[in-house]
């Protein structure tokens, strides 16, 4: 239990996937302009990451390891993630067309989102149990969502702020991301596994 709790805390705050490990920077900068899409993207990532880790962990433990096929790890994981993203896309289009259009290109981009791949690979590499792996995935995706939503909140305010022309747009976004990352450095060393 204690390990699960520390996994949650560590991967949301201490080793935040976006702000500490720098995974998934593309959607972090791309979808954080509006709070609505940021939340939608977060939900999609939480779902995909958790499902992907669950499936990849099972595949890895019960198919790849017994057959000595662990070198197929990355290929299989890519397959799993790509299929899952497809599934989410089909599902969202039916359930919430607004969210589907809001996410636009970024939904297919989760396929190539390194954060999802990283979670799946790290879960196996750290030799987590199934429960730990799933909790790890949820925590990592929550960390991603946290970073994304904080960023969206800041950017919505920056949109209204009066600032020099040179800083507008990407420039101020990148500076904000840097400062945010430094702020999260404050959690460093609070907990280790």
């Amino acid at each position, binding site marked *: 239990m204690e390990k699960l709790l520390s996994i949650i805390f560590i991967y949301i705050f201490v080793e935040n996937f976006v702000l500490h490990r720098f995974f998934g920077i593309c959607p972090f900068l791309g979808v954080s302009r509006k709070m609505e899409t940021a939340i939608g993207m977060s939900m999609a990532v939480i779902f995909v990451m958790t499902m992907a880790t669950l499936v990849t962990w099972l595949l890895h433990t019960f198919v790849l390891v017994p057959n000595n096929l662990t070198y197929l790890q990355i290929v*299989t994981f890519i*397959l799993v993630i790509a299929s899952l993203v497809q*599934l989410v896309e089909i599902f969202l289009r039916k359930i919430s067309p607004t969210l589907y259009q809001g996410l636009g290109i970024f939904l297919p981009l989760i396929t190539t989102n390194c954060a999802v791949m990283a979670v799946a690979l790290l879960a196996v590499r750290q030799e987590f149990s199934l429960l730990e792996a799933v909790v790890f995935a949820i925590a990592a995706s929550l960390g991603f969502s946290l970073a994304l939503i904080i960023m969206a909140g800041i950017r919505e305010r920056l949109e209204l702020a009066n600032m020099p022309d040179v800083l507008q747009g990407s420039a101020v976004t990148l500076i904000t991301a840097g400062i945010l990352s430094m702020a999260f450095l404050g959690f460093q060393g609070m907990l280790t596994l």
Partner: protein
Amino acid sequence: MLIIYAIAALGLIGLSFGLFLAIAARVFAVETDPRIEAVKEILPAANCGACGYAGCAKFAEAVVNGDTDPGGCIPGGEDVVNEIADVLGIEVSSTAPPVATVFCVGDIYKAADRFIYDGVEDCTVADQMYGGFKACTYGCLGLGNCARACPFDAIRMGTHGLPLVDNEKCTGCGLCVKECPRNLIQMLPPGIEGHLVLCSSQDRGKAVSKVCEVGCIACKACIKACPQEAIEMDGKLAVIDLEKCNDCGDCVEKCPPGTIHPRSAFPSEKEAKASAASAEKVSESA
């Protein structure tokens, strides 16, 4: 042996995922109206946005859902409207597109400049530089933003420094209206009936006559002359209501600066040059 295992494992995993996805696609299939696709095929695909929707696809969707009239596609014209009506099985009233009309006749011979502008050939840029180089702050700068914005080659810049609209080519898309930094272009119903006060200046009469020979000086002579009471003042500018105008032309003679023109004969660049030349002769002889 190893490679066979690898291929078999990956193949099986891929196959099962594929099957799963195929089932999911069936279960969660979204039914789209085939008419949307049909209407999209008919539309000009210029994605000009004149209909008020984000591109032709969105417009097609709105038309099929009954949110808007097929006549909303202005560049498509009558043919497109009729074809869409065929697809949807509805009746539409005929809709000829409006035409762009430039409300300024202050050409380079008749309207004075305040300073020599040597910057970018762009009306918006020139307009922002000390309020434009033209002495009249309402008049056409003549740098041709509207002509460049027109995707149908319906506007060209005349040698007299004013845009000339080809009514035949104008599809009424309204891109020039948005482009003009001085809002001189209006979309009017098609046809050549009626007269118009071709000026946009809201300055007082004295100030107008100082900077432009043909600007409306708000003397109200036309209002008194009009038997139809079709002319009203909008601030310091006379405006003719085309619905009431019966094309009698009484106002044209009464207008001291000659701002009013019949829609059938807007001043051409040749006329502008000729009148400028004759005016020069008069002033020389005098």
